[in-house]
Structures are given as structure tokens and as C-alpha cells.
């Protein structure tokens, strides 16, 4: 007991020394640093944090909070007491098998509490928005959990919804929503990923039995990375080359059962594990081989094309290219959710790193003076605050993308495809970069998995690969822009899609002298982003046509023009993000919110100008301009600095979903916590 008393006294001393710091420091050095909550040390907020959260989360706030509540109140979500607060973060020290098991248990808990009600049977924009909101909350807790749920509802369920017809809907949607069956999505193969049209699995129709025969003809055709396949899934949508009457009709999707109700693997199906991964170990990725598996004709998902009982191939869309595009269009929802979740991941890491930087000190710059808070170093501000500003801009971009997807129509298919490709790539790259910077900004503490950021690098890395490799997607963006360009020029008509309307106006002129107020004006910011996109599109078109004139095919011309294509993709993406940020800002009435959003927007633009070499390379900015931009970025850093805490508090991520270093990390690491 004496020992306990002693410890308590030591601790009390540490915790109370702040109050007497001035007198104590003159007599003896402080025994150790104390934690002062940033809420106490920082200035009062200059804007209403809950209004900002409303603007950022955008929709279904009550539903989000409800789901956070469900997770916080269950032992399944691994609540841990650290420094006087409870945190819910998965235990990443669990083995792969344990992570998979607990992930499935968490799904069952959410199912029991009605979280998934209406996810497939609900209709209309409201049901879709609610589903998005809840998935975002799940993602804030754990990426594995969200992906496992996403595969079941968005990929398997989405395939039934969009590729299937009434007979499939009636049979599978409710059963899926209630997890009576567990679905997976077998598209990728060992030999083919992004190039879906090259897959090698076959489905051959036999008119005499009225069945399709699904077969894996060679090792490179084994289905690979199939989430849910290794342990739990009972059914899959398998993508195969359809052979009818000796003719290959291209890639089609078929429902195949792979496990019975007791979890035993079905005859003629072989399944193997993909093994331990750098992250997402709660998801049981597996490999599947089909050995001439027979399925009824009705299992063809036939919204785009069908096979009649007597073996006739029927499709309203004659052109195989168009058929394929129409077929895959609904899968955009995956890219939408990935893009949005990348922003939430960036928010988590910034909230943790910025809160830590407002309480952790290092080095004093005056003799005997107190050590400086990390975020009071301009260099630390420059590391984190531009990423914060970008995250804000991309958060609005994510909201815009969601709305675009919700109001999808045949006219919007192209726009949705291009914007979702661009945002998926840009936002997930931004997240990875943010995670790395935040990890480093937290020093050694960033390495502990309980502090989330370091672990999230592994958990989120996959985002730049799945649902379309980021580089491939960006090339598709440039190609689509070029197609728009060619079409407009050929018909001599104005641009009216993909936000290219600015190409119809005269070329913007950037002033030779860039003052602070010019740099911060939306006019200039819009102009410089449009100028870059316009010029790069012109250059890309010129380069491709030049290659074509020299006898290269269109495809090989694209391949060799990759440098401009890359710059162009970025230019498109940044301009579209800026526009959604400006729109969000314009819709705000409250002056204090508008004010800070303006600063963030300027920071987003100026730091982009500073970082993308294209502006200097192609001369959109002079070297003098670039120097002005750099100065302004530093100025913006110091202006945003006092609002940093309020800005991360507005992310709407409950304390419990951050980490111990975001709060009292001294108490969280005290000896008394070791003894317990």
C-alpha cells in the first residue's frame, strides 16, 4: 500500500506541476512534462464545430451516431481504457484467423441490431444515403469490417441488383440482407485484374441439360483475392467468358453456390486461402477453382443479355464494347465508397496527429524557456495543415460524388465513371500520403497499433489497387477527356460535359504579379486550374494525333503519351475537387464558417500549385509567381494554425475512435496502467 501511495503522490505531482510551473521552475527542474488538454490550452473556437460537422458529414448524422453508439456499447468492438478514456480499436495483435472470426462476429452483432435493414430491399435516395453513411461509420472503426460487409452488400448484392432481373431479386436480395446466405464476388483472376475482358474462366451452355458449365481451364484462371471466399461465403457471382453454341459472347456473370449451409465446400469447387496480408487480415480472401461446375440456366444474371433454353444468345445491345460498358457501369458504387472512405481515414489520422501536436512539446528555443508545442513549429504546420486543407476539399468532393451517384441516370453514366475514377485515385493516394506524414508527425507513438495511424497504412494500401488500379483509372480519365475533345472539335460544338465547359470560354490570363488577395481569390484559383487542364488537354490531343500521323495505332499512341496523360488526369481531378469545394462554400451562410472554408480552399489550391511541377514545367506560373505562392502557403499555415483543433473536432469522429495519443498520453502510459 505504501508503494501505491508513493506512486499516487508522484503522479499527483506530475499532474499538478503545471499550476505551479512558474515558481517550481526557478527552484528545481520539472520532474516530467504534463499533459494539458488542447481544449484548455487553445483559443476558443471561432466557428461552430457542430455546424461544420453537419456540413462535412453532410447527411444522416443521427444514423451515424446511433451506429457509433452500437459499437461503443459492445465488448465485441474491443473497448480499452487508456488515460481515463475508453477507445474502441480492433486488436491488430490478433492472428489472421482471430481477426476473421471477430470480424464475422461483429457483422452478426450489427445484423442483430438492424444496421443492415433496407440495405438491399430499401428503395430510393434516402435508403442509399443511409447505407453510405452507415458504411462510412463502420469504416471509421475498421477497414476489414467495412470491406467484408462491402463485398457482401455492394459487390455480391449489387451484382444481383444490377446484373440480375426480378427472378434473382426475389430469390436473393432479402436472403442476402438477412445473411441467410453469404455472398462473394469472383471477378479477378491470377492472370487478369484490371483487364476484366481478358479473364479466362469459361461458362459453356448445354442446351440438352439447360445448364451452364463453369470451368477454370488453367492456373492463371483461378479466381484470386475473392473476399469472403476463404472461410465464410456460401455463394459467389462468378465472371466468365460465355460460350454459346461455339461462340464466345464475352464476359458475363453467373450465380454459383460454393458452400452448403453447414459451410462445407461444394463438389467440384476447390478453395484455397490467399494467406496473410499487409493489412485487411479480417477479410478472408480466397482463391477458387471451378471443375466443370453445373448451374441452372436461370443463374445467369441477365439484365443485359440472356441465353434462351434452346441456346440462343439474346441481347438488346449489339456492340460488345457497349455491352461490356453497360454491364460494368453499376459497379461504380465501389469506387464511390472507396473514395469517400479514404477521406475518413485521412480525417482519423489528421485528428490524431494534430491533437498530439497540440500537446506534445519538443526543444525550447530560448534558454530555460518551455519546450515548444510541435504545431507551433512552422515546419510542422507545413507538414500537416496543407493535408488538412486538402482533406476538407476532398471531403466536399466525396459528398459531391455521392450525390452524383445517387441521382445516376443513363445520361450521367459517363460523368459518373470519369469523376469516380479520378476521385477514387486522387483521394486514396492522398490518404496514403496523409497517413505516412501523420505517422511520422507522431514520431514513435505513430508506430503503436493502438494509435491507429501506422496500422492504417497497411489497412488502406489496397485502396489504390482494388476496384481499378489508380494509374489505370487515371489513364481512363485522360482518354475520356480526349474523346470529349475529339468529339467537340470534330463536330465543332461547344464542350458541355465533364466540367469542360470552361474550354468554351477564352483562355484565362494569369496576372504577372500575384498579390496575396489575388492568390486567395476564387477567380484566380479557378483560372489557374482551368488553364492547366485546358492546356494539357490540348497538348495531349496534339501528342496523340502526332503519333497517329506517324502511323502509330490509337492504343499505342496513348501508351507512349503517358506523361501528359498523367498530368492531365491530375489536372481534371484537382479542378473538379476545387469546384465542389467552392460550391460547398457558396452554400454556407454563416460568416465564421465561410471565413475558415475560404482559408482552407486557398490553402488547397496554393499547396497544389506548389507541389505539382506542371505549373512551372508548362509555364502557367513564372518562377516569381511560384515564390509568391510559397510565401502565401506559409502565411496560410500560420492563419489556419489557431483553428487546427476546431477543424479536426469538426470531423465528427468520436473520441473513442481516435487513439490514446490524441488525448492524455501521459496518463495512458503511466506506470499505474502497467500494474493493472
Amino acid at each position, binding site marked *: 500500500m505504501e508503494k501505491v501511495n508513493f506512486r499516487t503522490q508522484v503522479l499527483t505531482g506530475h*499532474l499538478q506541476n503545471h499550476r505551479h510551473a512558474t515558481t517550481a521552475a526557478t527552484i528545481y527542474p520539472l520532474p516530467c512534462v504534463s499533459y494539458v488538454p488542447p*481544449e*484548455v490550452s487553445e483559443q476558443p473556437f471561432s466557428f461552430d464545430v457542430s455546424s461544420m460537422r453537419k456540413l462535412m458529414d453532410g447527411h444522416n448524422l*443521427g444514423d451515424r451516431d446511433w451506429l*457509433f453508439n452500437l459499437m461503443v456499447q459492445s465488448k465485441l468492438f474491443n473497448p480499452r481504457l487508456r488515460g*481515463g478514456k*475508453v477507445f474502441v480499436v480492433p486488436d491488430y495483435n490478433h492472428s489472421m484467423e482471430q481477426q476473421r472470426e471477430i470480424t464475422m462476429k461483429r457483422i452478426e452483432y450489427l445484423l442483430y441490431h438492424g444496421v443492415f435493414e433496407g440495405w438491399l430491399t430499401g428503395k430510393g435516395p434516402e435508403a442509399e444515403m443511409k447505407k453510405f453513411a452507415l458504411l462510412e461509420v463502420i469504416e471509421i472503426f475498421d477497414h476489414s469490417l467495412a470491406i467484408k460487409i462491402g463485398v457482401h452488400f455492394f459487390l455480391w448484392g449489387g451484382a444481383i441488383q444490377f446484373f440480375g432481373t426480378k427472378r434473382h431479386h426475389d430469390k436473393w436480395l432479402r436472403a442476402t440482407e438477412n445473411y441467410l446466405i453469404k455472398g462473394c464476388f469472383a471477378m479477378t483472376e491470377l492472370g487478369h485484374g484490371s483487364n476484366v475482358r481478358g479473364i479466362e474462366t469459361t461458362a459453356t451452355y448445354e442446351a440438352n441439360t439447360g445448364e451452364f458449365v463453369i470451368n477454370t481451364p488453367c492456373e492463371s484462371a483461378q479466381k484470386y483475392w475473392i473476399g469472403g471466399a476463404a472461410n465464410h461465403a456460401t455463394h459467389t457471382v462468378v465472371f466468365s467468358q460465355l460460350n454459346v453454341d461455339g461462340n464466345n459472347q464475352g464476359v458475363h456473370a453467373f450465380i454459383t453456390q460454393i458452400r452448403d449451409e453447414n459451410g462445407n465446400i461444394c463438389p467440384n469447387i476447390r478453395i484455397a486461402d490467399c494467406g496473410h496480408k499487409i493489412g485487411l487480415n479480417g477479410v478472408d480472401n480466397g482463391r477458387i477453382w471451378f471443375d466443370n461446375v453445373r448451374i441452372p440456366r436461370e443463374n445467369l444474371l441477365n439484365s443485359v443479355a440472356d441465353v434462351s433454353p434452346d441456346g440462343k444468345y439474346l441481347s438488346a445491345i449489339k456492340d460488345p464494347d457497349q455491352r461490356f460498358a453497360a454491364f460494368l457501369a453499376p459497379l461504380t458504387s465501389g469506387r464511390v465508397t472507396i473514395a469517400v472512405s479514404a477521406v475518413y481515414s485521412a480525417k482519423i489520422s489528421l485528428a490524431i496527429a494534430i491533437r498530439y501536436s497540440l500537446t506534445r512539446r519538443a526543444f525550447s528555443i530560448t534558454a530555460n524557456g518551455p519546450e515548444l508545442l510541435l504545431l507551433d513549429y512552422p515546419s510542422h504546420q507545413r507538414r500537416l495543415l496543407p493535408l488538412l486543407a486538402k482533406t476538407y476539399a476532398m471531403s466536399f468532393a466525396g459528398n459531391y460524388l455521392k450525390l452524383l451517384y445517387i441521382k445516376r441516370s443513363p445520361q450521367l453514366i459517363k460523368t459518373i465513371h470519369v469523376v469516380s475514377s479520378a476521385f477514387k485515385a486522387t483521394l486514396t493516394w492522398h490518404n496514403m500520403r496523409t497517413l505516412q506524414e501523420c505517422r511520422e508527425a507522431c514520431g514513435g507513438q505513430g508506430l503503436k497499433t493502438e494509435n491507429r495511424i501506422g496500422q492504417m497504412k497497411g489497412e488502406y494500401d489496397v485502396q489504390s489497387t482494388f476496384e481499378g488500379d489508380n494509374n489505370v483509372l487515371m489513364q481512363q480519365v485522360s482518354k475520356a477527356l480526349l474523346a470529349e475533345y475529339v468529339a467537340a472539335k470534330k463536330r465543332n460544338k461547344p464542350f458541355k460535359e465533364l466540367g469542360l465547359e470552361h474550354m468554351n470560354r477564352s483562355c484565362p490570363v494569369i496576372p504577372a504579379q500575384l498579390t496575396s488577395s489575388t492568390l486567395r481569390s476564387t477567380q484566380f484559383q479557378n483560372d489557374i486550374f482551368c488553364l492547366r487542364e485546358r492546356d494539357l488537354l490540348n497538348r495531349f490531343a496534339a501528342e496523340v494525333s502526332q503519333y497517329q500521323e506517324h502511323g502509330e495505332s490509337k492504343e499505342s499512341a496513348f501508351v507512349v503519351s503517358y506523361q501528359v496523360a498523367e498530368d492531365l488526369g491530375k489536372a481534371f481531378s484537382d479542378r473538379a475537387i476545387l469546384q465542389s469545394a467552392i460550391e460547398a462554400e457558396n452554400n454556407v451562410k454563416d460568416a465564421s464558417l465561410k471565413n475558415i472554408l475560404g482559408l482552407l480552399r486557398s490553402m488547397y489550391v496554393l499547396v497544389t500549385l506548389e507541389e505539382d511541377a506542371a505549373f512551372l514545367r508548362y509555364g502557367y506560373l513564372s518562377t516569381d509567381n511560384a515564390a509568391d505562392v510559397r510565401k502565401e502557403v506559409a502565411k496560410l499555415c500560420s492563419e489556419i494554425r489557431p483553428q487546427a483543433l476546431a477543424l479536426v473536432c469538426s470531423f465528427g469522429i468520436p473520441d473513442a475512435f481516435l487513439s490514446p495519443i490524441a488525448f492524455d498520453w501521459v496518463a495512458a502510459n503511466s506506470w499505474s496502467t502497467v500494474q493493472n
Partner: protein
Amino acid sequence: MASSFGETDQVLVEEKSSTRIFTLNRPKQLNAASFTMVSRLLELFLACEEDPSVKLIILKGKGRAFCAGGDVAAVVRDITQGHWKLGANFFRREFILNYVMATYSKPQVSILNGIVMGGGAGVSIHGRFRVATENSLFAMPETALGLFPDVGASYFLSRLPGFFGEYVGLAGARLDGAEMLACGLATHFVPSEKLSLLEDALCKADSSDPAVISATISEFSLVPNLKEKSACHWLNIINKCFSRRTIEEIILALEREAADKEDEWISSTIQSLKKASPTSLKISLRSIREGRLQGVGKCLVREYRMVCNVMQGETSKDFFEGCRAILVDKDKNPKWEPSKLEQVTEDMVDRYFSKINDEDWEDLNLPRRLNIPPHAIAKL
């Protein structure tokens, strides 16, 4: 220590070595917390925190109540005779007291030997130790009064196991000492006959160490059996139903359970919910749900916004109607407006969580509490 003349006796103060014993002293009003009482307590707590000779605070009530709640009748009188901002003064002071207690660096032992309701919970549950007895009677009855569980209840109710807090806060359930201990509202149960011995032992302990205090109380405490009809036996149903997203869904889930089997507990719970103010139910649920994700300070700031909106009465005047029906006319037949749950829209609920549109109005300005020990925050 300056205090208002003639009114200091609403809180009696005893000094026993390093212990201060504060006794709430309005027995005829069941120790209802008046503005004077709340102010006096705040003054005492702040002074004791600065006073190095004080190690422990014991808080108890005179008579058969610990504290039956805030003196709401007086608040309503002030509002109807003057302005709602007079009411705001009371709540501001009360919530600051709650915050100081929740972040207090020295242990507070509250002896809950009688009625503990509303504001009474506010001055005890935030403290480190809560001692229940066979005479304890706990409730947060606000939804039946057109109010909502305030005094930081969105913080402490939401931290009870599972969704028990929703049940207690929405249905206004009455809990006895055994139930308080079982759900964590009380930290100890001591038979009332041993209270004076406990007091002596605590004074002798002469310590601020939570471990020492806890061990001292444990010497007199026991774990009582839950009564047969205790809500604690319905935990599974409580978790299943009160975890639902909305009030409507909660009631529907309870009705489904009731349809499955005849059950007095379920039907009386449904009755309590149906008798409560629809507006109160909706804002209370949202408050508890937000509270579960926030620290105690943010909870109190939000609740202060809410209570000001309630008093301003722009969206609903249920608070005044509830006080009329329960406290003044005592006809127990309030006419709620809106009268049905479905008439209370999301927008209306939203308004209670927004700032008051008034130049003079300010959010609750909590005192800056430096160096709060972590044990002071995590009590439940």
C-alpha cells in the same frame, strides 16, 4: 468565503479532521436544489479544492431524501414572472457545479440514503464514490415533466451497461439501491444503520487516495440481492429494444416483445413511454446518443443549449405544461403539444441542439480545469 446572508443553512457544513461533510438542508422540499443551494455547493467545492487541509468530501441529505432534483417549480415561477433567462441562470450555475464535481481532484463520497432524482443525480453521480442504501430511490423523471435528463445525464446514463441508460432516461424508471449498484450508478451499497460508522471511518482514514477510500467503504458494504421484478432481469430485452435507432422503433420493438408474451414489466415500460412528452423523448434519446460519444464537458454544453431552448419554448411548451400538471395543479394529466411522436420532426429536434438566436445568449462557458486526473473523468 462570502455567501448570501441567511441562506447558507441550505447546506450544512461540518469539519472533521481532513474531511468536510456537506448536508443538503431543505428536508421539507426533499432537499430540492435551489439556486442558493447550488451556488453554495459550488462555492464550497471550489474552496475545498484550493484548501490543502481538505482531503475528502462527503455529501448527504437531511431527512428522507438525498436530493429530489432541481427546484424546477421555482425556475418555472421565475420564468413566468420574468424571463426565461432567469431560468438559464439557475441551469448555468447547476451545470458548472456538475462539471466541477465531474472533474474534481479530491474524492467525493455521496451518501444516497433516500430519494435521488434529476438534479440530485447531478450532484452525486459525477463524484467518485456513490453509496446506495436500502432507502435509495433513483430516477431521472424528466421526460414525464416535458424536460430531458440534464445535469450531465447524457454523459453518465450513456455509460451504463448496454442500453440501460436509454431505458432509465426515457422511461423515467425508478431504481432501488441494489439496482443502482448492479448498473454502476452506485459504487457501493451500505445498509443505512452502518452509515454513521462509515462516516467516522472515512474521517479517520484521513486520505485522498481513491484506493484507501474505496477499501474503507467496502468494509461496511455488501452486495444485496436484486428484487424479483428488478429491471436488471430484463437486460436482454432492454438491450434489444432500447438500442433501436428511434423512439418509434424502440416502442415498436417493445410492443413486439409484449405480443410474444404477457409481461407486466414490458407493458408498464411502454406505458411510461407513452405518457411522456413526445418532444422530450426524442430530444432525450438524441442527447444520450450524442453524449455517449462525448466528454462530460461537451455533454453539459449541449444540455445547456437544449435546456435554454426548452425554456424559450419556441418549439414546444411541454416543460411548462409538465410542471403545471405534475408540480403545480398535480392533475397528472399533461396535454403535450405536439401530442404524437410522428408530429415531432427531425427539424424540430434539431432546433433544440442549435444555439439560441439571441445576441446576449452564450454557450455554457465551463471553467478551465487544469490537470484533471484521469480517474476523475472515468468513473463509470
